[in-house]
């Protein structure tokens, strides 16, 4: 095994801690840091007080295309795109920073942040894998997350053309919000 520098390890632990605070799953931590699985589990337990959730990560790209998640992921994707285009940060650092800005946006606009850090990371991986991309709406010219292989030349976004039952889920969202705050 190669010898690791203590300083770079400390930096990775810092990043891992930040990601855990933002709600990252274990798989994300494993893939973005070179820390061992056991250390990550230990770190997770120390910070959260319980074991990391088991099971697979959400893998469906269709989640990003349903109405409300699409708006949330488009806000995140546009912030991320802006940082990549104009700032120096790259990789997981850029994802963490854009995710923080997205959370801030949710707080100001008083909406529940339904995009998790793990999902945001998955979204960026889908962009890199060219499964998803952003297309600009023909009416407002904003950039929205779409399938890479769909026909998007006359794309109109879900905010210019709101579907009739948009945002009306069976269970009222406010209840889960209160439960989370309690």
């Amino acid at each position, binding site marked *: 095994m190669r010898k690791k520098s203590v300083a770079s390890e400390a930096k990775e632990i810092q990043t891992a801690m930040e990601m855990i605070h933002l709600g990252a799953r274990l798989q994300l931590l494993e893939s973005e840091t070179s820390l061992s699985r056991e250390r990550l589990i230990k770190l997770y337990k120390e910070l959260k007080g319980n074991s990391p959730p088991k099971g697979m990560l959400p893998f469906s790209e269709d989640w990003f295309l349903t109405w409300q998640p699409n708006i949330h992921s488009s806000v995140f994707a546009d912030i991320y795109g802006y940082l990549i285009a104009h700032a120096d940060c790259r990789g997981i650092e850029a994802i963490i920073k854009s995710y923080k*800005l997205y959370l801030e946006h949710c707080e100001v*606009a008083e909406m529940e942040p339904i995009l998790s850090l793990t999902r945001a990371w998955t979204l960026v991986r889908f962009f890199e894998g060219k499964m998803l991309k952003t297309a600009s709406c023909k009416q407002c010219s904003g950039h929205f997350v779409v399938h890479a292989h769909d026909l998007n030349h006359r794309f109109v976004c879900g905010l210019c053309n709101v579907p009739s039952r948009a945002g009306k889920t069976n269970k009222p969202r406010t209840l889960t919000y209160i439960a989370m705050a309690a």
Partner: protein
Amino acid sequence: MKATELTTEIRELNLTYLMLAQQMVLADKDMAIFRLGISKDIADVLAVLTPSQILKLSNSNMMLCRIRFDDNLVFGMLANYSGKEKTMSQSHAAILMAGQPAEEIA
């Protein structure tokens, strides 16, 4: 408002703006670039301004910051939403504003 009052107000706002912008850049450059809508070059300039340079810069009868949206669409979304639409129009505006180019040094 008299002209002298106006220039005083503008000077004060310029000063506050520059100080806040510099603080934001020093705290986190990348996030400041997004929040202020500026390019990396401007952020670098802001970071190294001395207090006396900030004073000299703000001492002007022209505003140093300006409105970031030049179309009616974004303006309407930010200003004319009603209770229920708030979340969506703010998100829509955020998407449009993030898609705009950054202010650069010509």
